[in-house]
C-alpha cells in the first residue's frame, strides 16, 4: 500500500538509509514487515552489516509502564550522544487486522531527542511477529542504530520470545503485580536478565522487590538458570524506577550497559546471537511447514474412517517425503 508510486529498490534504499535518511529506513522496515522477495533481498543485504548494535528486549504485563520507561531510557541514551532506536510492538485485532499503536504517546521526549521509533502491529499470522521483528532489528542495526530496544507486551509466548531473543532481556513489573507464588509460575519472569520494578513511588515496591528476590533465591537453590538460558552470567539485578519522573532510569541504563559488558567479556554474547540465529531459522521453517500443511489439508476427508491422528500422520509422511519444503 504505502508509497507504491515512486518505489525505490532495496539496495538503493539501504544506501540512503545507511547515509542517514530516515525516510529510507522507514521504507525498508515497511518492506521487511510485508515479507516476500523484497524482504528477503533486504535480509541478505543487511545481514553482513549487523552485529554492532546491542539488542535490548523490554517486556512485561500491560500497563506496567514499558513504553514510558523505554522513552525515558532512550531519551537518556540520546543525551549521551548514542543513537538508540525503538521497535514498539502492539497487538493487532484478530477480528479486523487493525491495530491502535499507542506506544509513541508515552515517548514524546524521546521523539524530541531524535530517537528513531517504529511501531509494529503483531499482524496476527502464526509466527508473523517472530519473522518480522528479527528483520526489522537487522535493518536498524545495519543502519548504525545502537542500542536497538524491542518493546513487546508480555502476553503470549511469541511476544515474550521476541523480547527474550535480545542480548539483554528486561522484564518490567509493578508494585501489586502479584506475590511470590505468581513470581514462581513459569513464563515471563524466567527470561529476565534484568528486572525493573516500575512505579516504585507506589506502595508495595519493596514487597515486589522482595518477591522477586525470593524467586531468584529459589532458582539458585533448584539450580535453574535465572537468565534467558544456561549461559546466565549472574543473578539478574532488580532496579526500581519511576519512569514518569525519570527516577532510577540512569540506574537502569547502567545495569543494561553492565549486562552488555559482561556478555561481551565472556562467551555470552556470541552464545545469545547463535541462539537467536537458530530461533529465526526455526521460525522461518515453521512458517514454511505451516503453509505446506495448509496446502495438503484440503485433502482431509472427515468421513474417510481414519482418525484425526492417523490422517495427520498420513499427510505428514506424504509431504515430508515427496514434497521437500521450498
Amino acid at each position, binding site marked *: 500500500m504505502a508509497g507504491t508510486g*515512486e518505489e525505490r529498490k532495496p539496495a538503493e534504499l539501504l544506501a540512503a538509509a545507511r547515509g542517514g535518511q530516515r*525516510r529510507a529506513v522507514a521504507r525498508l522496515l515497511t518492506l521487511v514487515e510485508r515479507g516476500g522477495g523484497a524482504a528477503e533481498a533486504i535480509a541478505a543485504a543487511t545481514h553482513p552489516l549487523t552485529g554492532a548494535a546491542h539488542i535490548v528486549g523490554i517486556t512485561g504485563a500491560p500497563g506496567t509502564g514499558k513504553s514510558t520507561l523505554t522513552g525515558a531510557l532512550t531519551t537518556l541514551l540520546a543525551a549521551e550522544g548514542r543513537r538508540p532506536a525503538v521497535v514498539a510492538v502492539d497487538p493487532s485485532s484478530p477480528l479486523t487486522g487493525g491495530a491502535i499503536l499507542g506506544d509513541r504517546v508515552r515517548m514524546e521526549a524521546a521523539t*524530541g531527542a531524535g530517537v528513531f521509533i517504529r511501531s509494529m502491529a503483531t499482524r496476527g499470522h502464526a509466527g508473523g511477529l517472530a519473522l518480522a521483528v528479527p528483520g526489522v532489528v537487522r535493518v536498524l542495526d545495519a543502519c548504525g542504530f545502537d542500542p536497538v530496544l524491542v518493546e513487546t507486551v508480555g502476553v503470549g509466548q511469541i511476544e515474550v520470545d521476541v523480547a527474550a531473543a535480545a542480548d539483554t532481556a528486561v522484564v518490567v513489573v509493578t508494585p501489586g503485580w502479584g506475590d511470590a507464588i505468581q513470581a514462581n509460575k513459569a513464563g515471563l519472569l524466567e527470561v529476565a536478565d534484568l528486572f525493573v520494578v516500575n512505579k516504585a513511588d507506589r506502595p508495595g515496591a519493596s514487597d515486589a522487590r522482595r518477591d522477586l528476590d525470593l524467586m531468584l533465591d529459589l532458582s539458585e537453590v533448584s539450580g535453574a538458570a535465572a537468565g534467558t538460558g544456561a549461559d546466565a552470567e549472574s543473578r539478574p539485578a532488580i532496579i526500581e524506577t519511576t519512569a514518569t519522573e525519570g527516577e532510577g532510569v540512569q540506574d537502569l541504563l547502567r545495569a543494561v550497559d553492565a549486562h552488555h559488558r559482561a556478555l561481551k567479556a565472556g562467551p555470552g554474547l556470541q552464545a545469545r546471537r547463535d541462539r537467536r540465529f537458530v530461533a529465526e531459522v526455526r521460525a522461518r521453517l515453521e512458517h514454511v511447514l505451516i503453509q505446506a500443511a495448509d496446502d495438503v489439508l484440503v485433502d482431509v476427508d472427515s468421513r474417510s474412517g481414519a482418525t484425526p491422528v492417523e490422517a495427520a500422520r498420513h499427510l505428514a509422511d506424504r509431504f515430508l517425503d515427496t514434497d521437500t519444503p521450498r
Partner: protein
Amino acid sequence: MDGPEEGATPIRVVLAKLGLDGHDRGLKVVARILRDAGMEVVYLGLRQTTATIVDAVEQEDADVVGISMHNAGHLTLAPLIVAALVAAGLGNVPVVIGGVVPDEDVGELEAAGVGAVIGPGTSATEVVASVRRVVDGRHG
C-alpha cells in the same frame, strides 16, 4: 519462500491533535473506527507539534495523517502541517482534518493542500471511506 501476509500491508495512519487543544475524545473515536476498518493507527494524542507529527509520519512510513482540531485554529495550522510535510519530502502523504470545521472553510483547507475534511456528524462509514479515498488517490 513467502514472508508473512505478503502484499497485505494495512493502511497506516498517524492520528494527532496539533497545538493547544485538549479535546481528544473525537480523535479516540476515530482511532477506534479506523482500527475496526483494519487499519494500523499510530496514535500520538494531544499537544503535538508539526515537528513531532512529521517525525512520526516519516519513521512510521504512514500512508496518511489525520489531525483533529477543535480550537478554531484549522485555517492557520492545517497549512502549516501540509507545508512541514512537503518540506520533509513527505508531500505525498495526504492530510485529513477532522473536528469542528465550518463548511465554509472546507474549500480554503482543500486549496491549502488538505486531502479531506471530516466535519461534525460524519458517519463511521464516511470516515473510513474518506481515508481510503485520499490514500488511493495519493499518486493521482
